[in-house]
């Protein structure tokens, strides 16, 4: 399988935000415009992570006349999937099997789980029975202290990263996103040490997130840690043609990535 480069879009109340330290959130735009742009760029996959703590959606696009329809995350998934012809992952606030069903039904291919995994230890296994584990992604938020955190990075689970990843693998998770929240928005490179350790000791596809500041960080992450995919948020929002340049850098470094077909 090709290595993937994944734009990750953080949402709050239906709007895209730039995140730093998991607490500073700068509003930067509209979720639908962004996904249409990414689709034009032929990205490998798109991940949406909703960090809203309340159920309130507002696209700030009265002209679209869809404002009133955007009451829940399901509406957002439905609108996004209309213009997204690559795999789409969606996470944030998923607590029940019905949540997963509704997100997949509205057009996502994968759900990204986090806090629920700590609340219900059999959730993954139960969901895998119904949806298959290819649809189930865990986002593992951890800090430089090596511990996994949940509930928006606020609660220390007292579990070490590798132990948690092995546990999730045993429970049949399909994919794991490793998110070092101390690097969130810092643009100082990926935590390749931890990523490498998890890649080497598990058989689940690993997605590296947090820390990308330039294209060299993508290359370095693949070369040093060999994850299945590298994801990033802010860099794709703020730099012109950033996805294209990221792919070029990976091609030049001979990373086995998908070459876009056509023009």
């Amino acid at each position, binding site marked *: *399988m090709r290595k993937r480069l994944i734009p990750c879009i953080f949402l709050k109340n239906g709007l895209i935000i730039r995140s730093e330290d998991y607490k500073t959130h700068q509003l930067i735009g509209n979720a639908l415009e962004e996904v249409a742009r990414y689709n034009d760029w032929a990205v490998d996959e798109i991940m949406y992570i909703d960090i809203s703590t309340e159920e309130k959606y507002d696209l700030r696009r009265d002209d679209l006349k869809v404002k009133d329809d955007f009451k829940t995350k399901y509406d957002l998934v439905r609108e996004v999937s*209309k*213009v997204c012809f690559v*795999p789409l992952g969606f996470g944030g606030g998923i607590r029940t099997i019905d949540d997963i069903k509704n997100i997949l039904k509205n*057009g996502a*291919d994968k759900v990204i789980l986090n806090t629920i995994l700590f609340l219900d230890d059999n959730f993954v296994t139960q969901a895998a029975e119904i949806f298959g584990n290819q649809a189930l992604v865990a986002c593992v938020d951890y800090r430089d202290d090596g511990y996994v955190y949940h509930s928006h990075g606020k609660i220390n689970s007292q579990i070490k990263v590798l132990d948690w990843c092995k546990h999730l693998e045993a429970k049949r998770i399909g994919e794991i996103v490793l998110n070092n929240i101390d690097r969130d928005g810092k643009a100082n490179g990926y935590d390749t040490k931890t990523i490498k350790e998890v890649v080497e000791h598990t058989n689940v596809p690993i997605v590296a997130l947090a820390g990308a500041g330039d294209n060299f960080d993508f290359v370095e992450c693949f070369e040093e840690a060999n994850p299945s995919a590298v994801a990033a948020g802010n860099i794709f929002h703020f730099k012109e043609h950033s996805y294209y340049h990221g792919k070029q850098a990976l091609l030049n470094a001979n990373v086995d990535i998908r*070459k*876009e*077909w056509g023009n």
Partner: protein
Amino acid sequence: MITVVNLGISNLSSVLNALKYLEIDFCVSNQAQEIGNATHLILPGVGTFSEGMSQIRNQGLFEVLREKVLKNKTPILGICLGMQLLFETSEESEGVEGLGLLKGDVIKLPITDTYTIPRIGWAESVLEKDFLGFNKGDSADFYYIHSFYCKPKNENIITISGENGKVTGAVQENNIFGCQFHPEKSHKAGLKILKQFSQEQV
């Protein structure tokens, strides 16, 4: 009109979104009569082989699908599980008879170190034959999610293969088309396949 067969077990929205985006007219149906009137059939599917076949049987579609495809030569495109259902049997569901529109079986993916099972992701796919807008010798990346793959009796019907020829990516025998990958999730390369299929002449 293109009719998307609704087996009620899988999420159709991605396929329908792609058809809408391509401005292709379509309807969605699980009714034998509507399916009988279709100019083109798309059989999508995610789920198990036995679930898929029992939906086809329960909704009384087994005969109409066979008649449309074999007798009327209506073009059909099976996607993922939908492709597998076109064959005779599957190791996923022993003893369950498939649609049998194509000769051959669905078998477990071999275990290798080049992918994990389920085999998920973008894979380089080589065109063994011309296929829905692509030419022999082309290569394109398509998006796959599967644990089983189709092994046709007649290997000449394989149009796309992956993993150095070991895994069937797509097949075509006359009016019968099958894609193991998801064209609706394979961006431009996949949309091209859907577009071309919609223009196939009966």
